[in-house]
């Protein structure tokens, strides 16, 4: 008799479990995420009207880096692979767009899907080593890609403009918007960023996302469960490259100039550092990482003009010491302890 009633109360729970759990998760863990995203979006739309053009440009660049880091996050944070050559995919997108604009006068908006698709295909190809290599070996191969890119871009001078690079027209704001150029560029970058985040979010919630997590957390178990490792590793590379390529394309729009030295090895390494500092595998990580990549080198320069690299490195060490799961992890921890304090009162 005692088990009877408990069974009755137990029965409906399983059916309701997914929904109830979902709500619970939203309230406790990610509950503040939706409002936070909404507030952030409102602020993001408001900011360019309050800031001087240079600051607007800086924020635009934060968004560009955030999109690139979003891609890198898919690969490193979610699929557990590594890339020390992600700057190369950004370069592919940037140069792809630049050459399309320079040679064929393609409309700006067309360059975006084209550059993204180009990077996707290259990612599929360069994802081949990821199928066979892991860890340090994969890091080395991807690093090699980043290293050989700069001389390659300089070599094919007739197409890439060589060391001098290419100077291009920026997309002009349509008259009906009444926006200045910097504001228009900012909103273009914002639109790309929002789209990219929605796309990545959807991808991670799909079957593909589950497969990537399985590959990251236990390759053997993933394999016996029927997750095709070669396929999903290459797919992770391709998606990741696609976002980096899109970021590169927006980079070209915003700067109006590409040169090989903008995509040197340091860019790839800074991107990876920015992602780890921002928070691997987290939703906010790429945004925080974008802020870090954009502003911290400048701040380092202000602190000590002679050795910005040293300060930059030290700051990375400090962040990793204080917040081993990145700034996003730190924010989550602060939110939880705040909630605990509030609950006590």
């Amino acid at each position: 008799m005692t088990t009877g009633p408990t069974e009755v109360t137990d029965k409906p729970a399983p059916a309701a479990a997914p929904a109830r759990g979902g709500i619970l998760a939203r309230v406790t863990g990610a509950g503040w995420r939706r409002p936070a995203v909404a507030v952030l979006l409102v602020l993001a739309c408001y900011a360019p009207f309050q800031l001087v053009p240079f600051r607007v440009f800086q924020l635009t660049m934060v968004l560009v880096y955030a999109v690139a880091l979003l891609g890198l996050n898919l690969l490193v944070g979610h699929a557990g692979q590594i890339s020390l050559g992600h700057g190369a995919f950004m370069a592919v997108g940037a140069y792809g767009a630049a050459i399309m604009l320079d040679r064929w006068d393609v409309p700006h908006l067309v360059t975006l899907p084209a550059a993204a698709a180009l990077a996707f295909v290259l990612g599929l190809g360069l994802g081949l080593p990821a199928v066979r290599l892991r860890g340090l070996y994969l890091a080395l191969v991807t690093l090699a890609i980043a290293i050989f890119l700069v001389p390659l871009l300089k070599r094919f001078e007739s197409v890439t403009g060589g060391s001098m690079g290419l100077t291009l027209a920026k997309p002009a704001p349509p008259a009906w918007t009444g926006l200045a150029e910097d504001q228009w560029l900012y909103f273009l970058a914002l639109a790309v960023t929002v789209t990219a985040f929605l796309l990545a979010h959807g991808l991670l919630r799909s079957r593909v996302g589950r497969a990537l997590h399985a590959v990251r957390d236990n390759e053997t178990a993933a394999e016996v469960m029927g997750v095709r490792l070669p396929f999903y590793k290459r797919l992770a590379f391709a998606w990741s490259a696609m976002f980096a390529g899109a970021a590169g394309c927006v980079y070209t729009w915003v700067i109006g100039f590409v040169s090989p030295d903008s995509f040197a090895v340091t860019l790839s390494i800074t991107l990876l550092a920015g992602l780890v500092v921002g928070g691997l595998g987290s939703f906010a990580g790429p945004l925080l990482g974008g802020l870090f990549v954009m502003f911290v080198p400048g701040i380092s320069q202000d602190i000590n003009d002679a050795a910005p690299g040293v300060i930059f490195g030290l700051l990375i060490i400090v962040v990793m010491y204080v917040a081993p799961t990145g700034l996003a992890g730190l924010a989550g921890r602060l939110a939880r302890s705040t909630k605990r304090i509030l609950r006590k009162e």
Partner: protein
Amino acid sequence: MNERAGERGADPGPPGGDAFLTVTDLHAGYGEARVLHGVNLTVGRGEICAILGPNGAGKTTLLRALSGMVRVRGAVRLDGADLTRRPPDAVARRGVAHVPEGRGTFMPLTVEENLRLGAFVRRGRGEVEADLERIHGYFPVLRERLRQPAGSLSGGEQQMLAIGRALMLRPRLLLLDEPSLGLAPIVTRELFRIVQTINEQERTTVVVVEQNAHLALDVAGRAHVLETGRIVLSGSAERIRADEQVAQSYLGYRV
């Protein structure tokens, strides 16, 4: 010795002759290191079959070979279908679920996400929900832990999760690699009891690799002793258990 040598060639198979899994002259290895040297084995439909043997005999490699994770020579047939040299996902689609050595828990994912990944190659959401229920029936503790990261479970719970996750495939053949590894005896006994229940209720054929021969022989119908990459003895669990001399020479301890 002659009698044993005779058994080395071909496994007479389970009584009744309804072979579900047939392994013929299976060779496998990793690069230069060859591990299996011509394994012959049949497993009857719906039986629990134990693979016994000392460390390094090739037990884990045999399971990995069955699920397509290592290159093999020879033949593996499941219910008439040829599984030789098929990739792991094709083998999984054929209904072979493999609980890997060390449980293969996706630590940062929740218990529920782990379970759902077990149904990765299957379609149809409604069935998956029903299967979650079914697995909670076998392992009630998993239901209480659904939202927890799987890494926070105890060893025994993780092994239950691993078996539950394998059941999400609705397997026709369940491969268990050393389920007792690192678990308390009482937990292991409980696990084997559940495996037996699963075998009886779902008619799932089970191949279990174990170092703990006692436990495995308690639930198995038939057993095979693997040594340095060859099956050196096959027979009913009772017979293997009774064969003390064999136990001493091949397992290194009294059964």
